[in-house]
């Protein structure tokens, strides 16, 4: 049963801008994100983040209510800045707006200036406003704007540092670590915007209950103006890189996400060109190991149909990688409307000879309808794909955000040669678990066989008839 659906969103595959802002800020050292809005915004976002990372997450709220909505949020924002400064002594407070405070037209920058003027005698943290209206684009843009705001406010030219800036986009802490390890192997000094690797996969100590004492520091962000170049792993979060290029001549390279063989090659090439670096033996070996893993797995993956959903650069990267493995991406869906995404996937499709249904700005309802038509043997995406996978009787390989129904979301890794190796093993083993028996033979579904036989019979009949005609 198919119905036209133009207006309703059913089972969203995107979140709003303030969520992206918070995701970006979780990798910044000793910083308090403050959402200027109703308290539900920060609480529900924390709820999503906490159940995904299984870590305590601190996001403050200006706790707007009816009165402050009528008279404007100045009082609450000033009060919030004061309370955070006094009780948490952070290095930085980043204030993000919400649909509510954007609509009532609060001038956050003006209010912050007023707060600073009123506290000339006190030592204050760095305070940066970011406009993140929830009704424009998606969390991906919120992430993008936040990194840009950090760099705009802080980047200061001094002496060249020989480093490369890496804007990660919303990737897992484990993937952040993969990227850092790869850069280390390449002998490349870097500034990571932003480094979630320690903050969101923390040991069991009560220190995790205060603001992060790891992650990207203010000094590092200031120093981004002096780097050799900036690589934005996700194309959709490259505004800060473009800013640095225009203002300070720091070269900007946008994407692709180093996911799979070719994309990681491209990333390594970009890094080596920017930094004038040699590719060490150890990286060649990891690359060889990825190829080895792909070859070992080839027969199980070949021509398996795969549906993919998530953030735009993740989905396009995964489309390329699964194609490299010999799989057939049949439906690729991102909740964010993006021409860049559509172009990327079209380019990959042409190169790889595939023809997936491309949903940019789609929801999981649209994706499910498309899967029913185009078919899929496996679904790759976050936990919200579980009901679709169950209905279609296909496995869900959980990658992305949020994953709240399995443990270890913070440790899922797909980037770089090493992360890609992990992924090849995981997807192939998932297919083995689902489609093969304990002896390793492919399970032939009786129903499918019947259909095949019927189709075959019809085919024979046609053949027979055509022979008769002759």
């Amino acid at each position, binding site marked *: 049963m198919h*119905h*036209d659906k*133009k*207006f*309703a*969103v*059913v089972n*969203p595959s*995107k*979140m*709003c801008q*303030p*969520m992206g802002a918070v995701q970006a800020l979780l990798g910044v050292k000793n910083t308090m994100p*403050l959402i200027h809005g*109703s*308290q*539900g915004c*920060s*609480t*529900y*976002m*924390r*709820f999503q983040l*906490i*159940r995904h990372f*299984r*870590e*305590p997450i*601190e996001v*403050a*709220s*200006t*706790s*707007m*209510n*009816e009165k402050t*909505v009528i008279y404007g949020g100045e009082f609450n924002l000033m*009060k*919030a*800045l*004061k*309370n955070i400064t006094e*009780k*948490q002594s952070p290095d930085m407070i980043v204030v993000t707006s*919400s*649909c*509510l405070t954007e*609509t009532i037209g609060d001038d956050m920058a003006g209010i912050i200036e007023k707060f600073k003027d009123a506290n000339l005698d006190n030592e204050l943290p760095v305070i940066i406003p970011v406009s993140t209206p*929830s*009704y*424009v684009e*998606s969390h991906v843009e919120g992430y993008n704007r936040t990194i840009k705001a950090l760099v705009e406010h802080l980047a200061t030219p001094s002496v060249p540092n020989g480093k490369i800036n890496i804007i990660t986009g919303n990737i897992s802490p484990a993937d952040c670590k993969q990227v850092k390890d790869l850069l280390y192997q390449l002998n490349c000094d870097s500034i990571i915007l932003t480094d979630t690797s320690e903050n969101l996969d*923390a040991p*069991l*100590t*009560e220190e*995790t*209950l205060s603001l992060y004492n790891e992650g990207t520091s203010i000094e590092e962000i200031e120093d981004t103006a002096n780097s050799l170049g900036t690589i934005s792993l996700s194309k959709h979060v490259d505004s800060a890189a473009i800013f640095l290029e225009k203002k300070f001549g720091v070269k900007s390279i946008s994407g692709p996400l180093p996911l799979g063989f070719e994309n990681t090659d491209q990333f390594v090439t970009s890094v080596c060109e920017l930094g004038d670096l040699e590719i060490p033996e150890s990286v060649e070996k990891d690359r060889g190991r990825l190829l080895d893993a792909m070859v070992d797995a080839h027969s199980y993956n070949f021509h398996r149909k795969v549906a993919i959903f998530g953030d735009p650069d993740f989905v396009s990267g995964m489309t390329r990688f699964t194609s490299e493995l010999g799989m057939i991406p049949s439906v690729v869906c991102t*909740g964010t409307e993006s021409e860049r995404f559509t172009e990327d996937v079209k380019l990959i499709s042409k190169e790889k000879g595939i023809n997936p249904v491309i949903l940019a700005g789609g929801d999981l309802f649209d994706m499910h309808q498309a899967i029913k038509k185009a078919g899929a043997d496996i679904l790759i995406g976050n936990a919200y794909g579980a*009901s679709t996978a169950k209905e279609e009787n296909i496995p869900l390989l959980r990658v992305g955000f949020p994953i709240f129904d399995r443990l270890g979301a913070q440790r899922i890794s797909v980037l770089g040669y090493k992360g890609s190796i992990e992924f090849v093993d995981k997807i192939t083993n998932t297919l083995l678990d689902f489609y093969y028996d304990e002896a390793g033979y492919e399970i032939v579904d009786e129903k499918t066989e019947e259909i095949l036989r019927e189709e075959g019979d019809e085919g024979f009949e046609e053949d027979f008839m055509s022979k008769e005609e002759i």
Partner: protein
Amino acid sequence: MEPVIETFESRKKHMCVKGEGLSIPVCDKASLPGTVTQRTCVFGGARIVLMPITDSIHLVHGPIGCAACTWDIRGSKSSREELYKKGCSTDLQEKDIVFGGEKKLFETVLELYNIYKPGAIFVYATCVSGVIGDDIKAVCKKSEDLTGCRVIPVQSEGFQDHNKTKGHWIGGDALLDYVIGTKEPEETTPFDINIVGEFNVAGDLWGIKPLLEEMGVNIISTISGDSHADEIAQAHRAKLNIVQCQKSSNYVARKMEKKYGIPFIKVNFFGLEQTTNSLREIADFFGDEEMIDRTEKIIERELMGVEDETQEYRERLEGKTVALYVGGNKAWSLVRAFEEVGMDVMMSGTKNGIKEDYERIKETVRDGTIIVDDANSTELARLLKKYKPNLLISGAKEKYISLKLGIPFCDFNHDRISAFAGFKGFVSFAKEVDASVSSPVFNLASKTLSKVSKTPKVGGDENAS
């Protein structure tokens, strides 16, 4: 008097110890701006009381975030439809904010009706739809007239109040104004009841319903766990309302009493004594001798065995302390159940309590119990560190604060994994509490390797080997 913990001056009065002075903390005040509040918004409050209506579409009229972070989070189970689990939104865009979102809402309602033919469509207002002044009532009326499907406005603009309790009431009002009393039951019996404030989290309702049915009462509707809109529509014909979550749902029960003359009694199916008392009170209300007899037999039968089944757990839990920090109702309804497994409730608190809630807590807990209102994340961490309970009962947002401090934790909120209500539920309750409190992982307390050789195990359970 020494404050319960160090915090903002204005916040100190939100914490007290029973027996010292007033025994009721200052409550129902706006959270301090800039703190990491554990509270949510009015929209959230309305959504959680209505979301368990399983045959209905729950449509959030706002930007995507309001729906994207709150769909399918209730942990409320269904024996029939799964429609309530869908995350539906009008996904308001900038142009809708400028020109108004009413047309988009109307089209969205029609689309959802055509796709799903639901029992009802609940339309939730959010902060922004309120500020731009969309008349969702008018749109609901228009689309209801066109489709013949109940389309129900829920005026739940998030910023309306600092306390999501108001959201519970708004959710209740939506039912009172648009659903209850709109359909007549085919048959009535002298023993018709509604179960109000039971949301079937983890299947709690299914631990209670068979007992009630065996007693001989006829359940017209549950408000709102595992329910259909059509069943709630007939709720006005009940002879009695029993109220489980008295935090969210006394409001509905009181209004039904006023409007339809239906009396209500407060029940509590957490714990053996409470379950027993609740069943007896229901039977006594009807005063039917046969029902009273049957009820006694049910109680006798069900209690048999529970003692044996829980003995192992009780042995391990005896004397352990527990802190409750919950939405409201469980701050008092769980106290006896913990006492029955041998544990001592040393702290009880809520995020959204109002004065009547704290009265209930005060009546229920022993002298010396810490009572806490609206503790933010820093305060909660300080409370746990200072008073070191053996267990924290709270929700998903508090879970890892507790665990990082090495304090065992049970989720009694949306993410609970087994049903705790009724007699069988009590066994699961004891089992799950034991699984947290008695786990050996919490005894590996030496946090740095370099200290292991010097310090013997600390904070260990004497039973642990």
